């Protein structure tokens, strides 16, 4: 049973591993939880109740971890910029072909990459805010731990693009078919997806609060352990979509999600029902 406490905490911390301060927080938290679990057992609670009360005692740890890790990642970004990066602020790469380009740790704020072929390029830890990627080919591009705030991706080719752990505040995606794109552990609270489809996309661990995915076609997508409060799937089509996490907080958040008029396959529907979601406004699709 105590393995499940370890599993739960492993899951919460997994995307943040690496930062020393985060590792310390995790160790402190685990020691506390194991002691609480022993106390609860000693008070006569059964295993399942003791586990549930233990997990409940954690509270919004994701927020605390984010505070800790955001700080260390900012430091990392500055270091990379200083040693490896180039300054292309406001540069013009429109329509160019830069396959396998290395842009890591670079200052690319406001750069124009529209219609550029950037296949296989790397933008790790870069400042790409306010950039224009409209119509660009971003197949196999890595844009992790970068600042993509207010950038535009209208009509971009997004296949196996990895933007995990990047900041996507007010980033705009439009008229795109996103395939196997990774958005793990990103902040998508004010990201816009206009007329996009999602296939094999991974939103695990991300903050999607208030995101509007109404009417979207969503196939083979993972929303595991994401924060889904007030997300709208109104009129969306969901196939093989994964909503997983056994925390009470996740289940409570799912109850605020709007599935009205959505269509989904039996498996996705069964998963949501199992998490106690009200699926009265949902239409079941035959495969």
């Amino acid at each position, binding site marked *: 049973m105590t393995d499940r406490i370890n599993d739960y905490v492993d899951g919460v911390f997994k995307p943040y591993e690496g930062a020393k301060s985060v590792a*310390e*927080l995790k*160790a*402190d*938290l685990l*020691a*506390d*939880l*194991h*002691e*609480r679990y022993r*106390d609860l057992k000693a008070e006569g609670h059964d295993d399942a109740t003791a586990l549930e009360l233990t997990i409940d*005692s*954690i*509270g*919004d*740890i994701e*927020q*605390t971890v984010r*505070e*800790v890790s955001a700080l260390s990642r900012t430091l990392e970004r500055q270091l990379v910029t200083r040693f490896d990066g180039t300054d292309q602020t406001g540069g013009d790469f429109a329509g160019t072909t830069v396959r396998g380009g290395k842009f890591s740790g670079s200052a690319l704020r406001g750069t124009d990459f529209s219609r550029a072929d950037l296949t296989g390029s790397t933008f790790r830890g870069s400042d790409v805010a306010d950039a224009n990627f409209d119509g660009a080919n971003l197949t196999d591009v890595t844009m992790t731990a970068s600042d993509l705030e207010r950038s535009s991706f209208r009509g971009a080719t997004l296949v196996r693009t990895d933007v995990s752990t990047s900041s996507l505040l007010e980033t705009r995606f439009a008229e795109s078919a996103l395939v196997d794109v990774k958005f793990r552990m990103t902040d998508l609270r004010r990201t816009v997806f206009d007329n996009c489809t999602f296939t094999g996309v991974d939103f695990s661990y991300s903050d999607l609060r208030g995101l509007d995915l109404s009417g979207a076609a969503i196939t083979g997508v993972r929303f595991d352990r994401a924060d889904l409060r007030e997300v709208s799937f109104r009129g969306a089509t969901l196939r093989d979509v994964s909503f997983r996490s056994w925390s009470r907080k996740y289940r409570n958040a799912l109850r605020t999600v709007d599935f009205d008029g959505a269509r989904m396959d039996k498996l996705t529907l069964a998963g949501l029902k199992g998490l106690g979601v009200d699926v009265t406004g949902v239409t079941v699709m035959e495969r």
Partner: protein
Amino acid sequence: MSTSKVTSDLLRGNTDTMVLKLLSESDRYGYEIVKLIAERSQGAYELKEATMYSSVRRLEADGDITWYWGDESQGGRRKYFRITDKGRATYARNKSNWEYAKRVLDTLL
């Protein structure tokens, strides 16, 4: 629902002072802090682990507390928190601010 939300926000807003009070009595580790707060409030306020660690991080950054490794065997090494002189001054100031606010609120509510 809104009553409990207001109450819990009011309590949470005083977390730093609660932690300083506990540390002014003795050095303590994380779980001890949340446990003592539940005990002393007779279960009326359950401080979450996340809120507590967020508070000690803040207090540490402000120089109100420091920490050191204890040498306990059960459950591995424990991080003990200790109040600084600055922390004692912060506690005294917060406490008197609260006494003042309480008097004012009592005349208004």
